[in-house]
């Protein structure tokens, strides 16, 4: 087994031995379930009103009125849930001094960072996959297109990856899990505001840069079904950048 595989397996095991993964996944799915119910109920109310007002049932785009709000709200939930998945990854190792075992074993810092990231990403991807129960359950009774849903899932997967990468960086900065989780919340919320800030400075170069750095804007494209290289590059580049910074932090802590 490769060093990355060894670390990945250990972290995955540790997610499911402690209650963290179960709690996070349950809460996430509960919220998504509630959200889906509300979105569907709203859509059916609206169609009833239209039926009464116009006498015939108009063509409703379910992708637009049901799934888009679900994905936008899911993004907000992820903002709060994802840092919990990453908070212990480095903080706990440092607190329990098990980091010394990893640092004195024939594995590189890159192996450690990569292994930990992909363990968190696997749990996250599994969690997202479970949320697909919603559209699957709706499919027999409703007409909608799957393609935008798949691109929305791709966007959610990539944005979550970016959040995980930021959370891992936060965890590497401290040995206190609470501080790690609060740092991630702070960083992600600031990132969240970049889109708005971009509109405020819309005419300047700063505005353009801020808009590009806003994950929400890129996410919106994917939720609408637009797959653009620039959005994919943004997310993948962001993930790699976060992991690179994490690597630098862990490496620099060797010197102290």
């Amino acid at each position: 087994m490769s060093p990355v595989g060894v670390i990945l397996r250990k972290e995955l095991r540790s997610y499911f031995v402690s209650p963290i993964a179960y709690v996070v996944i349950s809460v996430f799915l509960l919220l998504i379930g509630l959200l889906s119910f509300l979105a569907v109920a709203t859509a059916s109310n609206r169609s009833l009103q239209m039926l009464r007002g116009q006498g015939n049932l108009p063509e409703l785009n379910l992708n637009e009125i049901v799934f888009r709000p679900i994905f936008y709200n899911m993004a907000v939930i992820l903002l709060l849930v994802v840092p919990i998945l990453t908070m212990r990854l480095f903080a706990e190792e440092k607190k329990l001094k098990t980091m010394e075992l990893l640092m004195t074993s024939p594995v590189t810092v890159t192996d450690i960072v990569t292994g930990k990231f992909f363990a968190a990403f696997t749990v996250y991807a599994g969690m997202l996959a479970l949320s697909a129960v919603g559209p699957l359950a709706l499919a027999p009774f409703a007409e909608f297109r799957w393609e935008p849903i798949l691109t929305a899932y791709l966007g959610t997967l990539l944005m979550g990856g970016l959040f995980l990468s930021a959370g891992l960086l936060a965890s590497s900065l401290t040995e206190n899990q609470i501080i790690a989780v609060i740092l991630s919340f702070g960083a992600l919320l600031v990132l969240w505001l970049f889109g708005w800030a971009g509109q405020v400075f819309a005419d300047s170069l700063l505005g353009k840069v801020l808009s590009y750095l806003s994950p929400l804007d890129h996410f919106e494209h994917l939720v609408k079904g637009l797959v653009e290289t620039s959005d994919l590059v943004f997310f993948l580049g962001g993930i790699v950048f976060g992991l690179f910074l994490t690597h630098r932090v862990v490496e620099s802590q060797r010197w102290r």
Partner: protein
Amino acid sequence: MIQVEHLTKHYGPKIAIEDVSFSVEKGEVLAFLGPNGAGKTTTMRILTASLPATSGTARVAGYDCFDRPRDVKRVIGYLPEIPPLYSEMTVTEYLTFVGRLKSIQPDRLPAALDQMLERLSLGEVRGRLIANLSRGFKQRVGLAQALIHDPPVLILDEPTVGLDPKQIIEIRQLIKELAGSHTIILSTHILPEATAVAQRVVIIHEGRIVAEDSQDQLSARLRRSEKVSLTLKQPPLDVSDRLLTLPGVLSVHQEGTATFLVETELGHDLREDLARFAVRNEWGLLELKLVSMTLEDVFLHLTQHEEGIDTAGVSAGAPEPQP
């Protein structure tokens, strides 16, 4: 097997170790002796290639610790002062993980695991969570972790701290068994431990090596006198002067209200004479014991020797507190 030359490590303005040089031959056991904060752990961490030195070189099995960290890490087994244990794993799970981490071939892993469980008598707790193990078992799991990939070099940071006497003897016995086939560096702040297991002792103090010698030479060098602690029920005021009249007594220091430390010439066990003398004078002899050399004595002797400071009036015999 291990060569350390002019090793220096600064943490910001703080100097952890300065100009440390020593070498260890294959199969030798070297003890690092020094109080907490002397630089033992820093030196060991540099040898594990996990901490870069500020200057100087360290080589393990021919690999430079700075240039070839991965090769160094493959040939060493390291037990830090706090065993790096994942409390939510069972002993078997933990050792399997460490085995994989140390890149043991998958087909050889079960055999290596069984050997560790047997060698460190961990069989009975193999399925238990590490969180629920006693301190002694945890330390043994820590040792198993360092040994599982059968490394030629072992670096053990205070391997017996916090153990009960029986466990200490077991661990020392194990270290003796491993000597010869393994090159071992261990750190301790207890002199008898260093002399019990190591052929050579390096004494480190405030980041510098103050003495490096074989066990026999070191003992000979240190033992220029013997000390006896004497507790009396009714000591007379002039007890020191009267004890000094006994042949062989070099000096007498008052330790407590009625406890005296009698320093005698080397090779003269005066306990019998002292007992007879105290009883004859009806001083109410309560306790009489030989005081063994402690680390404090070692330092006092060494600093006295090397720097010529007169430390004759300083009391000795207080045991080094365990952290």
